[in-house]
């Protein structure tokens, strides 16, 4: 039920974001979504890709420090209040969200929320108990293509 997210360390200066993305592109790996957290000095690039193990290998070969994290994807209706409803469930259960990001799917009426939980296994249990739909890797790839 969990997805593998790749995180990369980047210095916060012009041109630094392009380099790893180009490395992945050259390997023919498609990026499903990404998010970037930054300070004035450095940034953390988080990627969900189709072939995470291959992507990790090519990035590491190119000299990047890559970290692998388990995240949880949930699909919600892509309409006002869709995210709020999901968050209400998580807050009600007292689950701690480290960070999250979201993206819409090209077809259909679904949006995908990516959550980084302190305790992903417990979070999945709560989400399922509350009737939310947790998307696994294969399903996400099908939805996104």
């Amino acid at each position: 039920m969990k997805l593998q997210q790749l995180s990369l360390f980047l210095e916060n200066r012009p041109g630094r974001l392009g380099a790893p993305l180009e490395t992945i592109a050259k390997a023919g790996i498609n990026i499903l979504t990404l998010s970037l957290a930054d300070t004035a000095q450095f940034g953390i690039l988080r990627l969900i890709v189709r072939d995470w193990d291959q992507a990790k290998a090519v990035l590491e070969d190119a000299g990047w420090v890559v970290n692998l994290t388990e995240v949880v994807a949930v699909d919600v209706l892509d309409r006002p209040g869709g995210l709020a409803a999901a968050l209400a469930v998580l807050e009600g259960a007292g689950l701690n969200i480290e960070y999250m990001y979201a993206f819409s799917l090209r077809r259909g009426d679904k949006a995908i929320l990516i959550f980084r939980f302190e305790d992903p296994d417990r979070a999945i249990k709560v989400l399922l108990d509350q009737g939310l739909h947790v998307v696994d890797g294969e399903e996400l790839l099908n939805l996104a293509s």
Partner: protein
Amino acid sequence: MSPQSHPSHHAHQHGTEQGLWDPEAETRSRDAIEALQIERLRTLVARVAQVPFYRDHFVHREIGPHSIRSLADVRRLPLTTKDDLRRQHPFGFLAVPRRALARIHGSSGTTGRPTFVAYTARDLETWSHLCARFLVAGGLKPEHTVQIAFGYGLFTGGFGLHYGIERVGAAIIPAAAGNTRRQLEIMRDLDPEVLICTPSYALTIADGARELGIDPRTLPIRTGHFGGEPWTEDMRCEIEEQLDITAFNNYGLSEVIGPGVSGECSARTGMHIQEDHFLVECLDPESLEPVAEGEAGELVITTLTREAMPLIRYRTRDIARLDRQPCACGRGTARMSRVTGRTDDLLIIRGVNVFPSQIEEALLRVEGTTPHYLIEVSRPGRLDEVHVKVEIRPELFSDRMDRMQTLCERISREIQAVAGIRAHVDLVEPRSLERFVGKAKRVLDRRNLGA
């Protein structure tokens, strides 16, 4: 040790006429200075036989007072290094019984542990007079009020200058270091004519005044005595222009006494070395042979009159030039140039001595931060800034921003604990720092202090 072998200050007439605190001692001819140095060096050789480090050396080589027939014979004596002092920590270099000590100061060391420097009551007396001399040479009068914005503590700057000024009879405001706004309030209320601090802090005071809407040129200060860190002629011009003062340079190091080894007279063409108390050689740091007259070399100092912790040929690691030509002021003493560099990797950051090895020690406490790091020192505005660049490694990296920020803070805290300075920690990408075949270059000093 006989008291007669030491200079008695009471026998001298002290004053402030013509910038001479001790006219008799300060205007000796070159010949008279050298004759006195030989005499005191002989006595010193006898006295340091109390110190095992020197005694062992002397016994092996059959060295004694008889070995000193000319000043050149000082080169028959061993050199002393900071490492030697550290190996004898804390008091292996004491030449008097512990009970004879009157004060203990300290200097920073590579381990974050200070090297202690001990003084007898007479050492403190000598020190006060040495500070009085350079202060008076720079125009200090008993009617002046002096604000001391140096740290008071193990650091020798605050107390050394304090007692020198007290000796001259001027009024002291022991404001101590920091809190610029309060320093300015004190200046406004008490009208001190003289300021004592590091040169960079003088510029901080000027900045602080402007922030409060005060023109720094209208401050009461007319004279500044600055030391404790290397500075340049350009910086002197800037300080004088901004504060409308005359700025004097002085030099010293805690291992040999503290401030008072040398200082400028009104001519300000080099710092007069107080040669009746210090025998200064200028050596090539590689060959350890004397450099040609007027060439830059490492200053090596023998303390001729220190009682508690006399040092023979102490390697200061400071690079400067000596000038033995007579000075317009009438003093016959040799003058030293500004310190233009170091023969080791010591960095002086806002007056704090920092060895790169201390930063490395701090980094070693945080797993994964070594071996690839670089210490960058700059002076973007008035004050020194240190950036420690650390290459990110897998064991350091987290996808969570809070963890990354905690990491930076932790490294910064460790550096503060070991080296006593605040450093900015810049995490950088892997392989972004230059790689070296051989000895890695860990320090990039962009301050251009050699000017």
